[in-house]
């Protein structure tokens, strides 16, 4: 009885999920076809695997530069926001002052402010300091993510027994020493979770590079795919190849961090 129901569920759910996955199948399978074959049978398997699209994409687009740009921006932004977020969490936990409490409230309010309502003044600000169309400027804008990091980290940090910190203090360790060699290693799990979650955001983000970056040499991967639509309007297989190449690192990342992505999602959402 139980197992029969299990089989019925499988029989419905597995084909259904294959249907959900058709878009991914579609773009992958067409990267191995010529333009003519894609037009003829968009969903069929290639009659003979063709690798010319991959060669064309690496030849015709600055994909390596875009990859390095994305890597640079993501690494720097994540490191920065984790550092700022965990420093803030430690500061808030250590102190009991009224000012700090007020800061905590302001942080909650700031967390609710959508990026759209601060976008234009930030754009003006970056124009004024000549950080528009610059990767450093992007990192600066992503600094806003520190607030989200702070919220997740502060919740986790409260679970660290205060006795540990107290003991280190009595042993004569200063606050910076305690933060760097005691607290940071202790909160590693949450740093990984938040780091993974924020990496997905920065790596995949479209709106920020689209607004702040204009030179082709400074594009991130997603922005490059966007501009490539114009370049490859008629050459569909080449466009899909570019998409697949851009998707590949995300898939690898997903496989290794699925657990963290899900738990980051849950932690982030529970806090609301």
């Amino acid at each position, binding site marked *: 009885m139980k197992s029969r129901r299990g*089989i019925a*569920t*499988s029989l419905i*759910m*597995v084909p*259904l*999920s*294959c249907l*959900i996955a058709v878009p*991914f199948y579609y*773009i992958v399978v067409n990267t191995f076809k010529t333009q003519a074959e894609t037009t003829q049978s*968009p*969903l069929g398997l290639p009659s003979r695997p063709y690798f010319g699209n991959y060669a064309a994409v690496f030849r015709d687009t600055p994909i390596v530069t875009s990859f390095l740009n994305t890597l640079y921006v993501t690494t720097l932004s994540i490191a920065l926001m984790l550092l*700022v977020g965990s*420093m*803030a969490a430690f*500061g808030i936990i*250590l*102190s*009991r002052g009224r000012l*700090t409490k007020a800061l905590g409230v302001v942080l909650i309010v*700031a967390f*609710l*402010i*959508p990026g*759209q*309502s*601060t*976008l*234009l*003044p*930030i*754009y*003006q*600000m970056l124009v004024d300091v000549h950080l528009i169309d610059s990767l450093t400027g992007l990192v600066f804008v992503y600094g*806003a993510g520190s*607030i989200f990091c702070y919220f997740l980290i502060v919740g986790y940090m409260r679970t660290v027994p*205060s*006795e540990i*910190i*107290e003991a280190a*203090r*009595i042993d004569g360790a200063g*606050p*910076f020493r305690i933060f760097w060699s005691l607290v940071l290693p202790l909160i590693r799990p949450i740093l990984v979770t938040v780091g993974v979650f924020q990496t997905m955001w920065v*790596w995949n983000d*479209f*709106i920020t590079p689209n*607004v702040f970056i204009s030179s082709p040499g400074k594009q991130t991967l997603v922005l490059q795919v966007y501009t490539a*639509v114009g370049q490859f309007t008629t050459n569909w297989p080449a*466009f899909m190849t570019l998409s697949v190449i851009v998707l590949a690192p*995300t*898939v690898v*990342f*997903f496989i290794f961090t699925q657990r963290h992505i*899900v738990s980051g*999602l*849950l932690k982030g*959402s529970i806090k*609301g």
Partner: protein
Amino acid sequence: MALMTSLPTKPTPHVQGRSRVGRISLDRLRERGAISLFLLPITAVLVLLFLIPLAQSVYYSFTDYDGYSANADFIGLRNYKSAFTDSSMVGSLTFTTVYAIGTTLVITVLAIPLAVILNRRFAGRGFVKSVFFFPAVPSVALLGLVWVFILNPLGSGVVNSVLHAIAGSGPVPWLSQDRLAQLSVLGVGVWAGTGWHATIYLAYLQSIPAEYYEAATIDGASPMQMFRSITLPLLTPAMTVSTLLLLTAGLKVFDLPFTLTKGGPGFATHTITQSIIENGIAQGRVGQASALAVLFLIVVGLVVLAQLFIARRLEGRYS
């Protein structure tokens, strides 16, 4: 007193510490300086990326600032008025609202049963779970661009070629007719978000004790009754979380409609975010765009507050 403040969470008296009160309170003075140093970076982020820009947005919204000229004239509420009369802005307000409410409803209705099914044991469960979740992993913008090809009216557009093969119908203008374009954007949004939200529900489902269902089975409850009187009430917190995320993400939407349709045809799939960017940056109507940005902030804030209020009442009723 110094000792009390030096204990971050639970103020448990520390015998060893107490004997060194003098030293510790000296340290505290030094520590207070250290604490400010720890809080300095986040304060800088707050001031530079939130407080100053927000104040400027509010200020610009009452002026005719164009982003270039040195002086901006105060024009009162005129920008706010035109946010409700200008056709591009009205279009974006309408579609954004439709999108936010539409995706929230459809995804919730689909994600809960999906989560209930994924909570059962069956062959291929891991595969099914990963496939449904996966569209949430890549960039939404990238998925939008890929879907442009899938929905293309030409022969190599999958949806139309399949429709042609099955029903023999001519190409459907998925992205170039107003109503269809809106539906397509919504559809792709639902496709991309359902698995992600089912994962939220699944996590909550897994925390419901199996005994509840066992007891209900003994009492002779039907599966439907169990779903209505055990599963749904216990999923209330998950629903709060999920719908709040969906509504706010829906209001902030930009990537998907922009990559699928560029906001068209006309202003059919124009979003508030797109309006803010186009008016404020490309067309130099900073004042006008800022008014929209401020309105947007108020709407998002109200949605969050309303949601939290409803959540508190609902959770109170069930617990």
